[in-house]
């Protein structure tokens, strides 16, 4: 039950960010779907740890954004940026700072590492997905060249 509330809250937040980032109204639904995918994956894979969880979510969301950007004929950032927002480790960053201030260094370390893990995870996800996309595009180009040569 509470997971559903969290999921909906994430979607509401993504809608807000899409508007703040100036995503055009006609792309809004697709940007928010990306955010919903990210939220859903984040909740489903939570027990796998911050790194794996954010890698999976970032990977899928990047693939989704690249695909939708081609379908909707708009820059990839239009969809990728709002979609990645739910993965941003705002909570972990906050608890790192607040635990340092209350001199609970063990907790601060844990949260600090979670923040770092999440950032690295997002980076890894984007990286692998972008590699797949560029590989796919190169193969497509090669096939096209071969066909026009024949």
């Amino acid at each position, binding site marked *: 039950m509470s997971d559903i509330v969290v999921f909906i809250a994430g979607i509401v937040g993504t*809608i807000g960010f899409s508007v*703040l980032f100036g995503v055009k109204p006609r792309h809004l639904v697709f940007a928010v779907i990306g955010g919903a995918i990210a939220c859903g994956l984040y909740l489903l894979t939570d027990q796998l740890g911050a790194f794996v969880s954010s890698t999976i979510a970032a990977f899928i969301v990047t693939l989704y954004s690249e695909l939708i950007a081609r379908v909707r004929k708009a820059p990839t950032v239009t969809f990728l940026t709002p979609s990645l927002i739910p993965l941003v480790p705002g909570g972990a960053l906050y608890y790192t700072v607040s635990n340092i*201030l209350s001199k609970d260094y063990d907790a601060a370390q844990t949260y600090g590492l979670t923040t770092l893990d999440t950032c690295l995870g997002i980076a890894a996800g984007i990286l692998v997905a972008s590699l797949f996309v560029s590989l796919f595009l190169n193969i497509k180009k090669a096939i096209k060249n071969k066909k026009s040569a024949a």
Partner: protein
Amino acid sequence: MAEEKLVAPSADVIVCSALDVGEHILKNGGEIHRVEDTIERICKAFGAEHVEVFTITSLIVASVRMPNGVYSQQMRRIYRVSNNLYMVEAMNGISRKLCSGELPISNLRAAIVEAKKKKPYHTAIIYLGAVFAAGGFAAFFGGTIFDALCAAAIGVFITFLDRHTPKYINRMIITVISSLLAGLLGILLSKIGVGTYADKIMIGTIMLLIPGLSFGNSIRDMLGGDIISGALRLIESLLLALMIAFGFALAILITGGAA
């Protein structure tokens, strides 16, 4: 077509126009490779023989050689990057029209001004966006409905600050001040009993300040081979995150604890 080539614009005009388009893509949150690609494409479309573009987050340098041996080199300094993804898309469209000859190069300025005017959302809707964003993420990170409402109110305040601070003020300082005020307001609202958890309210507002776009873009830049630009953006977003942490830490220290 032959006639068009005769009245072709000078190398200076071509580079200047291409830089105009590139500048707006970079300023509004586009990727580095998109900026360089667009500039090169526009220059080539107007007959440039050789194009060199180098872009980092704060500077674009472009050099063009025309078939008749005329050179032109210009640069653009970029001061403040913001998130206006509709502008990236609009510039993309303008660039495509320029290259296909649909839009004459003399009308480029007017087209850019036109695109700037076409804001997709009314100011009220943007504030509503801030309400959704801060409130939604306060709840997403485990806050109650009251926390979400508090975060939403602070979110509107932060967005107001962001939109009305003069552009020449250092972005780091704005971030520290915004985080400090957001932290103070969050703690205050939870102390007087409107919100339940001060930490959840603050996390909701932190999300508004965090440079999510820079981080995502920096990874994509580095992967595309623009290591310097990507590293610059990465350092910038890390510094901003540090400033956010600093602002909230100050707020917690001043009020003597968030709990």
